[in-house]
């Protein structure tokens, strides 16, 4: 591999790793606040134990997310100096707001973790809500930087040719709303389904464990509501990309020729050299509807873009299919869960349902990773669309395989340790449940 590829892979591994922990850090506090609120409402001690148990996971995920995020903000300059060197003045504002929100999240998380006995119950719940709000905000702010890369705004040239940057316009770039909404929902879907899946897995072994039953019933509705909203947000995103980054949509759909009306390709293996697709099903009109809400709309194909500027079509098509397929699968599961939750609560204890929930544990994160592949690989060969090529931005430093190997090794180790600690904490919570005499014993306290 050459230096550019190592730089890109280092960035991809760093982002791919960080995003999982960032999602957990953003969404677990929402679930924690919910548990805390249920505890206040019902007085049932089980909610406090769930909240405390989740809080330990949050502390671990937060620390890993915080340091991997610090690494990311420096990596942009370490690996692609021309990006920060050219557009640092534009994207700095988003980083400043993200930093503020992130710092607030850390402060309130500290209050939440250490303040149970030191703060009034109201203040403690307030801290939980603030962790959730600021955590979400920090994620939303930093996505603006990615939105800027996809649809740069606030960039103009003065008469003497120097670049003039407007950080406010860059922050409020047009790609931001759709991306931020899609990412925030994806974080909620992925994390709450993962939480539901983990508790389902423990219920499989311990069918009558009230701790896991209650935790599952807290996480599942959150997951379900977000998963049902996500296809709508995906539609919003698709329409945005169709207008602002047509080549990304064309590559994701392996649409080699501009077509009116354009069919949606489901499955299939694209061959970019011969501009053909083998296998796969073409759904007539569907891509026109997806892109422009009009069955007769023309959808730009890759023929509108010079061959050298095509994103990698195969990678993109597979990633896009994976993301959409998981999105719809989880929306289906969400619908079923809500029906069950509302009308047939005992279904949630059924082993077949548990098996499906367990299988769904990693799916949301898989979709998040696939989605980042779509947005990042789909922008290639550009780092900032139309303004800065990735090739021109990469550092001149040789031997970039060294940081790549270091990054992979470090994050692999951190992933394994975090997972191991998570299992240990679940075991500990179960041991505690076994000591608790009967369900509802803590009620009224």
């Amino acid at each position, binding site marked *: 591999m050459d230096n550019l590829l190592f730089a890109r892979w280092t960035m991809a591994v760093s982002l791919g790793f960080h995003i999982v922990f960032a999602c957990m850090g953003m969404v677990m506090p929402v679930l924690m606040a919910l548990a805390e609120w249920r505890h206040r409402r019902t007085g049932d001690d089980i909610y406090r134990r769930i909240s405390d148990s989740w809080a*330990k996971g949050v*502390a*671990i995920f*937060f*620390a*890993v997310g*915080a*340091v*991997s995020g*610090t*690494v990311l*903000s*420096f990596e942009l*300059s*370490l690996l692609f*100096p*021309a990006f*920060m*060197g*050219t*557009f*640092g*003045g534009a994207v*700095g*504002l988003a*980083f*400043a*707001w993200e*930093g*503020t929100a*992130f*710092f*607030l*999240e*850390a*402060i*309130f*998380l*500290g*209050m939440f*973790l*250490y*303040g149970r*006995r*030191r*703060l009034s119950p109201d203040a403690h719940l307030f801290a939980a809500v603030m962790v959730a709000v600021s955590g979400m905000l920090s994620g939303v702010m930093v996505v603006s930087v990615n939105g800027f890369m996809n649809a740069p705004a606030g960039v103009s040239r003065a008469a003497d040719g120097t670049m003039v940057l407007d*950080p*406010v316009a860059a*922050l409020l770039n047009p790609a931001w709303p759709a991306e931020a909404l899609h990412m925030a929902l994806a974080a909620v879907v992925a994390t709450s389904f993962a939480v539901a899946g983990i508790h389902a897995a423990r219920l499989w072994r311990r069918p009558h464990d009230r701790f896991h039953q209650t935790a599952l019933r807290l996480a599942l509705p959150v997951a379900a509501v977000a998963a049902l909203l996500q296809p709508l947000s995906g539609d919003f995103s698709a329409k945005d990309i169709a207008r602002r980054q047509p080549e990304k949509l064309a590559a994701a759909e392996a649409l080699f020729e501009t077509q009116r009306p354009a069919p949606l390709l489901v499955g299939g293996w694209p061959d970019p050299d011969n501009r053909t697709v083998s296998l796969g099903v073409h759904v007539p009109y569907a891509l026109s509807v997806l892109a422009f809400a009009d069955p007769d709309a023309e959808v730009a194909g890759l023929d509108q873009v010079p061959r050298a500027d095509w994103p990698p079509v195969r990678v993109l098509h597979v990633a896009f299919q994976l993301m959409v397929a998981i999105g719809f699968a989880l929306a289906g599961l969400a619908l079923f869960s809500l029906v069950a939750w509302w009308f047939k609560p005992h279904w949630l204890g059924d082993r077949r349902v548990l098996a499906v929930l367990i299988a769904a544990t990693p799916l949301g994160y898989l979709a998040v990773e696939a989605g980042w592949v779509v947005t990042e690989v789909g922008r290639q060969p550009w780092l900032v669309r139309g303004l800065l090529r990735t090739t021109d931005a990469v*550092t001149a*430093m040789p031997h970039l395989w060294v*940081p790549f190997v*270091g990054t992979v090794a470090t994050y692999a180790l*951190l992933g394994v*340790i975090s997972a191991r*600690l998570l299992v*240990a*904490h679940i*075991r*500990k919570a179960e041991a505690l449940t076994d000591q608790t005499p009967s369900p509802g014993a803590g009620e009224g306290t």
Partner: protein
Amino acid sequence: MTFLWLVLFVALGLYVLLGGADFGAGLYELLTGNRGRVDKALSPVWEANHVWLILILVLLSNVLPGPTAQIIAWLHIPLGLALLGIVARGTAFTFRHYDPAARPARAYTVAFRAGSVLTPLFLGMSFAATGAGTLRSTGTFAEVYVWPWLTGHGLLVGVFWLLLCFHFAVVLLLSEDPHDAAARRLGFWAHAAVVLAGAALFAQAALSGVPWAGRVLAPGPLLCVGAATACAAGVGTGARTGRRVLTMVAAGGEALFIIGGQLLARWPVLCVVDGREVLAETAGPVAPALIWALGVGLALVVPALGALFWVFKAPRPEGTSISS
């Protein structure tokens, strides 16, 4: 221009006082083996302190994007190692703290201590390289990416920052029990080491012709040196008489005056590349939106941080422990 200096000073000062105390605590643990005190004083969520470092990055990227990005790229190795240290110590400390096993792995402790020592060392070496006049844009791999920061001067600066962090950490850790004699001795030696390293650094910088060394004798930096010396005397008095607030304030003031003096001595030179000074005048203005963001950000963060410290340091009710 003054605003730029002020924000750099505040960010660097807060990073050294808040983040530096964390690093120093790692060295304290390494030297004394006293885990309990460090565990009690540190909280995993303070990993957020690296935000101050990111603030410096954002600010310099805003006013001087080209040189900032280029210098970071040249300092890839020490900054990469510092980041590795940040990751290692931050995660290891949290893992150790939250590992439900009766005896958490020894590797956590090793990673926490090693990261705590190496991070300020490499950050200090990187900081030294920007002002030492060793950075060069052309040459072999070693000439561009290794020798500019791997210098005797860089090492001295790194050790000096590490000792400064260490001293401040000892003062903070001791504030809980100002009459602990062994710890007071450690504080004294840490302080002596800071003063010695500072003198050695200044002598070395002057002898080897480091660009900023001559300007230390200008009124501004000299005033800071004087104030730092007065603070150092305050630390000594406070420690001897067991007055914890005086000791803490004086130690914090000493660190801040040293940072201020160093920044003033280097001002208006932001960095030296290929032997040419990059002056603060060449930097663009700080974007008004960024000033607003920083102002609002500080207005939100500072009271919240104050509240956190208040919750954290308030006397703990009986029968509670932070790890439960």
